[in-house]
Structures are given as C-alpha cells and as structure tokens.
C-alpha cells in the first residue's frame, strides 16, 4: 500500500488549487483500484477550501464508501479527529 505524504505533494493546505492536487492523487488511486495511506504531519493546518477541493470533491464523485476503501490515515490523533470530523460533516450535509 502506497503512502502519500501530504506535505510532499502540496505547496500549502489552504487553497482550492492545492486541494485539487490532493484530489488528483486520491482519484488516481481509486481509479487504479489501489488503496493508499494518507500521511498528514501534525503541523499542517487544513482549511475548508483545501478539504472541499480534495476530499469533499472525492466524496461528491465517488462516495463515502469508496473513500473509506481507498484511503487510510496516518498521523496524530488530533489530525485524524479533524479530518474525520470534516468527513462526517460533509457526508451528512452532502450525501451522495
């Protein structure tokens, strides 16, 4: 299983543009029927714009189940809680 180190693929984790970079990696893994570990450093802050354009867009296109099958998380519990909270909110508000 490939590990995707977030800070190595994006210039920042604030903008929509960089969110799209993450989305492309997630989508490639899904379309290749691969799964990946997303490694998020404990010092990265992620804005809603960044998350909407990456994980949110993936959820819109492929759904929560596909996301869960494709992506595992590696990092601190604090960061996991933040991402998990975002995914819960997003999938509740925008169910596919």
């Amino acid at each position, binding site marked *: 299983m490939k590990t995707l180190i977030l800070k190595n693929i994006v210039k920042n984790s604030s903008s929509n543009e960089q969110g799209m970079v993450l989305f492309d990696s997630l989508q490639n893994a899904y379309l290749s029927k691969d799964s990946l570990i997303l490694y998020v450093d404990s010092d990265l802050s992620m804005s809603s714009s960044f998350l909407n354009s990456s994980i949110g867009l993936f959820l819109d296109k492929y759904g929560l189940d596909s996301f*869960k099958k494709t992506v595992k998380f590696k990092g601190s519990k604090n960061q996991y809680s933040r991402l998990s909270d975002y995914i819960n909110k997003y999938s509740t508000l925008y169910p596919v």
Partner: protein
Amino acid sequence: MKSYILNVPSSQKADDWFSFIRESLKHIKGKSQLTVNFNDVRFMDTDDFVVLACLIESFYINGANIEFIGGTERFNNHLFNIKFKEYWKKGFDRNKFTLSFNRSTLCLWKISEKMIYSYSMYARQYFERFVKNKDLIPLASNMDEIFNNIFDHSRSPVTGYIITQYYPKNDKLSFSVCDFGIGIPTSIKEAGLEKESGFEDWKAILKSLEKGFSINSTPRNRGFGLNNILEFTESSNGKLFIISNNGVVEKKAGEMYHAGSNDFNFSGTLIKIEVDLNTFEEKDNTDQIFDF
C-alpha cells in the same frame, strides 16, 4: 497638491469610528497627500487598527502619499513596536510580514492571497512558544478560513488587514480582521438567498454562520468557513464579534447570540475573535494509522 487630513477618533465608541470611516471614504479620490493625525489618541484596540489600516489603504491605492502626525508619545511607541506606519513607507516590502518589537503582538499584516498559508503557520508557531505543548493548528486553519473568505466573497479593493495580539496574563489571544468589501449581508442579497423581504443585516450574518450555508462564489464553496470559526470560538471558550454593513453579531461561548441593527452603513466586514489558549488540545506528535 490635493491633501486630506484624517483626524483619528480618540473615542472607543463604534458609532464614532464608523461615522469617521464613512465620512473619510467620501474623500479618497484625487488626493496626493494624506495626513493621518492621531491627535491625542492614547489607545486603540486591534479592531480600530485594522479598520484604520483599511481606510489609509483606500487613500494609498488611489495615489496618496501617507504621513502621520500626533498621538501621545506612549501611543507612538506602540505604533512603532507593531510597525503600523511601515506599510505606507516607500521601500517597504509588502510581500513580507515582519516581526513586531512587541513580543505579544504580530505586526499589522496586509492580507495577501499568496501568503495566506505562510502567515497563519507563522502565527501558529509564534504563539505556540507562549503556551506549553498546546496544539494551535486550529488557530492557523481558522485564520485561513477568514482570509479565504475575503478573496472568495468580499471583492474588497484593499484586500484586508489583520493584527493578532496575545495576552500573557490570561493566555487569551485575539485577532481582528477587516476588509472594505461589499459585506456579508450584501453578498447574500446579491446571491438572492435572503428568504424574506426586508431581511435585516444581522439576520444575514447569523445565516452566514450556519453550517452548509454558502453563496457559492466559487465552485467548491460548501458553507463550512464561518461555521468553523463559530465552532472554534465555542470550543475555545472564546468570543466572536462581527460587524458587516448594518448588522452586528456577538457570540460568547456558551451564551446566546447578541445581534442587532446599527446605522453604520459599513461597506465591509470586521471580524474579531478571542480565544483561550488553555482550552486547546495538547500537542500530539505520535503517528498512528486509522481507518476512516
């Protein structure tokens, strides 16, 4: 040479400040010289600083040179420490933010889209030095939310300004952000999303704080930004204060909203956030693997 003098109010009353802003903005065109007169000002709060910075910037982008006079000696020392006057000096590099001479304040910063992330990360690292082992990531991400909102929705000709201040006695931190854009209520009205005629501005501000509410200025807006900020102030025993157009909303953690109308006719948005850094999570640098 056409010149204009800004007589900065020594009062702390919002009425006085917004009347001053409204009147001054009538004079921004065609001035080659702006004199900012602090008169007998002894103190200005962080929100006064960012509002004044946006006002000065409005003259500056219309071609005025800026000079400063007046103010008490102590107040001028404070202006020097936070480098307030530097922004409008010739040769000042606006593409960088600089260290304040006052340890507990981050300098005035003109919000630049390219530097959003570097500012918020710098603020996090800077203030983590004051609080032992606290994880201030939420501070950075919520600053980003406000900055992104300015570029997504406000259409502010001056972008915006921020000042961040830490209070060591009680570990509280506040930051004030101001833009001179169209304002939250106007954005909602322009998008045709007000549900009733005569939709008051304070109701529009409250609406903007709802999770999932968005005017969709950009394709990926999903209505999380201002709601995140509200949740951030709630979870950190803080306070959120917003003035935009003719509306004002104040929310202290655990208390009811205080919201209402004013006659500021403020074309822009002023947001002040106060949080208690003691409420932040402990840092956690362990790496674990989780399923979503």
